[in-house]
């Protein structure tokens, strides 16, 4: 069997605040195999970004990894020193951050934020690094890159800044790319272009990808496997094909149902009833139980364990066998099936 490139085991990360302890990650398990594209999906605040930050150990000051392991090429990153981590970040694991503006230094030219780091990590001269940077910027659709590389970030639109970050991460040729919502600020045409670039890079350089996104269309198009997060835990793991054709966890189905369809005129949208779980005093038992239509007494008492229900299919739900796929979900499934088929 192939060894995983990245294996996150029972990761628990808490934040300490005045109003209490935020149990942001409560036993995350996640694997990424070499060359694989893994999607991480889940609603706002469920712990996607903090999982990535825990992997790279760049948590905010009030955050702490309480327990668990982050095995990268078999080595646990959790006990590593800051100096050792600096050798991992960028070169081994590169990340495209969710906030394009804050991850670019506003008072430094784009060139100053790309060339040095490329020269360092790829061991090339400054001139070569500049060429690589311009090439990467052009590849993500920044026109006139040779000139614009010497401008400051505020001169670029939101979508352009995001593409600059993508260019910078890819130019480092990492083994694993963590992309946190890389296409949210992009319109559909450029989104497609950026996805193509990521795909190409993957093939050319055997890049593995951990793609954090709420866009299920992007997930369908780009990933091999998906981890569905809910309230700081993992609800379901399966191949992308299985997630879209035979979702098993009630939350996964609710998620599919709430995708807005183009066929409905101006009007109200379907939402998952109830509210996103609090992470200070989170719901007992299964964290989804207050919003789940299959919930029974057991759900508020016992935490459902992540179990392999079929080869390669993991579900954390007490009543997974009772779950049915609704008509709305069926429709969404139909529309995404095509994309996945095209891919394989």
């Amino acid at each position, binding site marked *: 069997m192939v060894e995983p490139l990245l294996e996150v085991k029972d990761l628990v990360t808490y*934040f300490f*605040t005045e*109003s*209490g302890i935020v149990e942001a990650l409560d036993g995350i398990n996640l694997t990424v195999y070499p060359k694989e594209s893994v999607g991480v999906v889940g*609603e*706002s*605040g469920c712990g996607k*970004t*903090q999982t990535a930050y825990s992997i790279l150990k760049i948590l*905010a000051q*009030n955050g702490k990894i309480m327990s668990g392991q982050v095995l990268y090429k078999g080595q646990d990153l959790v006990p590593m020193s800051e100096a050792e981590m600096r050798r991992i970040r960028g070169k081994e694991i590169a990340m495209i951050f969710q*906030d*394009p*503006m*804050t991850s670019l230094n506003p008072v430094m030219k784009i060139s100053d934020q790309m060339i040095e780091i490329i020269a360092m990590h790829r061991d090339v001269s400054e001139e070569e690094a500049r060429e690589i940077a311009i090439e990467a910027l052009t590849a993500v*659709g920044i*026109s*006139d890159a040779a000139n614009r590389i010497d401008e400051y970030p505020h001169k*670029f*639109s*939101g*979508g*352009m800044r995001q*593409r600059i970050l993508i260019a910078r991460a890819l130019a480092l040729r990492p083994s694993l790319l963590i992309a946190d*919502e890389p296409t*949210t*600020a*992009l*319109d*559909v*045409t*450029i*989104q*497609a272009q950026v996805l193509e670039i990521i795909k190409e890079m993957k093939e050319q350089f055997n890049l593995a990808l951990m793609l954090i996104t*709420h866009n*299920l*269309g992007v997930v369908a198009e780009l990933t091999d496997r998906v981890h569905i997060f809910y309230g700081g835990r993992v609800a379901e793991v399966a191949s992308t094909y299985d997630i879209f054709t035979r979702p098993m966890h009630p939350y996964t189905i*609710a*998620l599919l149902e*709430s*995708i*807005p*369809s*183009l*066929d*409905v*005129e*101006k*009007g*109200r*949208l379907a*939402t998952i009833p109830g*509210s*996103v779980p609090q992470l*200070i005093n989170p719901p007992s038992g299964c964290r989804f139980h207050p919003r789940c239509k299959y919930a029974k007494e057991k759900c508020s008492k016992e935490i459902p364990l992540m179990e392999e229900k079929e080869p390669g299919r993991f579900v954390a739900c007490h009543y997974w066998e009772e779950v049915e796929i609704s008509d709305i979900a069926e*429709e*969404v499934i*139909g*529309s995404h099936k*095509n994309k996945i088929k095209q891919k394989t």
Partner: protein
Amino acid sequence: MASESENENVLLELRDLRKWFPVKEQGFIASRQVANVKAVDGVNLQIYKGETLGLVGESGCGKTTTGKVIVKLEPPTTGQVLYRGQDIYSFHTREDEMYFKRNVQMIFQDPYSSLNPRMLVMDIIGEGLQIHESHMPRLQREQIVYDLLEKVGLEDYHAMRYPHEFSGGQRQRIGIARALAVNPELVVADEPVSALDVSVQAQILNLMQDLQKEFNLTYIFVAHDLSVIKHVSDRVAVMYLGTIVEYGTNRQIFTKTAHPYSVALMSAIPRPDPRRKMKRIVLPGEPPSPINIPSGCRFHPRCYKSDNDKCIKEDPPMIELEPGHFVKCHYPEM
């Protein structure tokens, strides 16, 4: 047209609006201007009271810049912005200025850099009320903040935290709550739900629609997700390289798409029903640079309909295809 009675319904009007950013080159002694980034280059548009106008167009086409000019964050290079008939860059009285400042709010595309990192969420959301409703008792103000937090799906205890302690989507919702706190008339919402998962996104869009019904709010809604635009907009304007190339009602834009650029844009949407799949039109060429805007029709280098003659020479005028549906193209799809 019955321009008089119609005028009463116009809340905001953009008249030949331009925003050019000078490109400077560092010389030996001083820097000199060598060119202009024509971010907004001749926009004419009316926004009606109580409507949602969707603004779409590719990255870098000038949507955010247009929004910033409207809320008075960037003065225009030329042209006018009229709010209730008054030029917002030359108000006569302080009252008019304050009225505008309160009633026209923006939800920013980049939620993090627009939130003051040293302020508590309570103060960020309550700031507008503190300025514009200075007599409001503190408890009442706090109650409004708590109500808003709940409406955008956050908790009371979030009020006592700083922006960096939130996830991307949570920050975006703080920005939304801040803009809505002062009960404005017009909200320029720049990609307000782009960082949100579909369910929370739906919750926010529903909230925005409820407030619109209750208070007759007007929205300019910038988004690149066309399914979102279709859900929220009464009218839609399509922007390309600093100018509006087509606008009309939601139905006109989505079912009678006329401008070749709009057609290309629509074709890139993943369709929910595979049977009605359109052929994806991939735009050839690089995204154009707003520094060197192509001659004639600025879309011609990437247009599948360009005749390589008139399109290169003449800037097409804005024509009305049917009542309310305007397009700027020599050969619109009919």
